[in-house]
């Protein structure tokens, strides 16, 4: 390590790295250029070798190149990553949201639009008539999830490829939000509490 690494730079107060002066061999250039070509060549033949072995069915456990073959392959996302929102359903399929507008209030990007209406069940009383999230404005801060008193909005779909051909298309409606599915098994908030707090 010592032999390969150059003199470590010093970190400036502003957070940048200040390199020390170049050594004689670095200033000569040709040596450093040759070293770079060597590194590239080693990786090339190493990857070629593994690709060839994969073709004949060998060394399946070793990865050849670091490139992820998106979209067929997906990188690992930690389970708690904040990704596209979904609205959680009750057992009967109705949205758990009661239209309290806490998420709309806390949202720093003002990208949530809720209109509430009367729920026919007086014990539920209130439900969202309209619940739109403008993903074109969303900053994925997750405050809406934190603020929700009903655990009705979650960001656990692991959907990150969000694109549309128009700004209008970036707006998710209640139906689209209800269609979202959790990517992995969902731990209920109560079970989570029991696990954490005993």
């Amino acid at each position, binding site marked *: 390590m010592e032999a390969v690494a150059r003199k470590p730079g010093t970190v400036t107060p502003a957070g940048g790295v200040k390199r020390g002066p170049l050594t004689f061999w670095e200033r000569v250039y040709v040596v450093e250029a040759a070293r770079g070509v060597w590194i590239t060549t080693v990786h090339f033949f190493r990857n070629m070798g593994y690709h060839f072995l994969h073709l004949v069915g060998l060394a399946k456990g070793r990865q050849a190149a670091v490139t992820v073959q998106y979209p067929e392959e997906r990188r690992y996302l930690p389970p708690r990553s904040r990704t596209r929102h979904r609205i959680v359903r009750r057992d009967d399929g109705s949205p758990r949201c*009661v*239209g*309290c*507008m*806490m998420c*709309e*209030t806390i949202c720093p990007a003002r990208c949530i*639009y809720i*209109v*509430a*209406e*009367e729920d026919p069940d*007086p*014990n*539920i*009383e*209130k439900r969202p008539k*309209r619940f739109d999230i403008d993903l074109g404005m969303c900053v994925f801060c997750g405050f809406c999830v934190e603020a929700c*008193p*009903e655990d009705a909005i979650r960001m656990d779909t692991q959907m990150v490829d969000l694109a549309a051909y128009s700004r209008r298309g970036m707006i998710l409606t209640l139906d689209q939000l209800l269609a979202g599915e959790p990517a992995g098994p969902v731990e209920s908030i109560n079970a989570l509490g029991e696990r954490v707090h005993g």
Partner: protein
Amino acid sequence: MPKLTIDGREVEVAPGTTLIEAARRLAIHIPHYCYHRGLSIAGNCRMCLVEVEGVPKMMIACHTQAADGMVVHTDNDKCREYRAAILEFILVNHPLDCPVCDQAGECKLQNYYMEHGTAGSRVDEDKVKKRAKAKQIGPNIMLDSERCILCSRCVRFTDEITHTHELGITERADHSEITLAPGAWLDNRYAGCVVDLCPVGALTDRDFRFKCRVWYLTAVDSICTGCARGCNITIHVNRDRPHKAGGTRVMRYKPRENPAVNQWWMCDAGRYSYKQIDHERVDSAAVDGRPVAVEQALDASAAALKRAAAAVAVLCATTATNEELFLARALFAGALGGHAAYLAPPQGEQDDLLLLADQSPNTRGAQEILGTEVRDPVGWVKAHGVKAVVVVGEADLTGLKAEVDHLTVIATHPGKAAAQAHVLLPGSVHAEVEGTFTNHAGRVQRLRVAVPPIRGAVETWRLLLELAGRLGHPFDFAFEDDIFAALASQLAPFAGLSHDNLGRRGALLGSGAPQPTEVV
């Protein structure tokens, strides 16, 4: 005159003054639910307990009379401990409904809990369910008994203020709940006031239900336009979130205390009259029914008025502000040498609490500024040989168009006046301008801008000012208070008054200057 000490400060009060009122004189707020200055004293919530030195038990500040030499503590450890205990007790059966409750954000339970409450409840028993959950008890009122803390303010209101006795408390102990009297329906003229009185979310307004959260609203002081009483109100406007309630800007009216006018109340007719501000407005100028730009319409109107020379007149509805009326008078009766008069206000029902038969807010102002009342516009125009008329506001002008060469109407809503107009100009309503109204008793009261003129409309005073400029008589007024200053300098009853010194409670005509605000 008893002299007592509250929290180390001395105060002298009239005999019979309660401790809560004496503390108010010192700007000390004692938490309370059931006490209301407009109602009799019930003393049932126990939230206002204070310590009086020499008395072994805590005393309720709302019903203990001040005595000479009393030493009262309202905020020591003992008071705070009692308050926390009372709150815990009140909350025993209160549901965790805040997410769906319209009161959230203006709820005294929430506010006092944050200020005085304990961290958690020690009650393990299930909450007692009441019978009425989201139950309609009147055309505009919802009752939720679970949220009720039984302060009885609403019951006392229907007993003492409206004398209609619709409400009562039935059952015993934790089964007690607010109930309608057999066969009754909470539909009296002032029913909406029980929603303002309710310190929690037990009584809510069906009209406001789920429309908006209260913390989205901005409150602006204004005057109700429902009748000549001129009840003081705050207009609650949703400025930032236009997706609520179909884009309506004004969400509700709430009465504002003014002991000289409406005390704490307002009638339902006035309360729900806010709807006209955003509903079916005239949003474009028109010439002979064709929509045109406001400037073109003003040009057309000015050209027609010029042709009529001095045979011009202005007829103002009594919904116009004092400033608009004065401008109309100064232009038409003054500069142009024509006539200025006001249209007889429409009459409606009347009662012995607030509602007056005269259904417009500024009839007295029109009497003072324009003087002449016109009941028959057609006859009046004939009698004065008027050729061109400008009408400000709504009125029945049937037959007027045939009598004159030109009729300009500054209208806010499509109606009988707008339908007759040669030139139609989109004007402003009271919530869109600074200004003043003079109520039936001659009290001049301020209006403040709650919302800008609705898209397409222009402030009525600005339209009159533009018209004056086009007719060769420009006025040097930049804003509404300049117009009022000119009005005050030219008309004796308004002398000494200005927008700045009217304050929150207004001032009587001829008073010279507003009386200092007294603590009531």
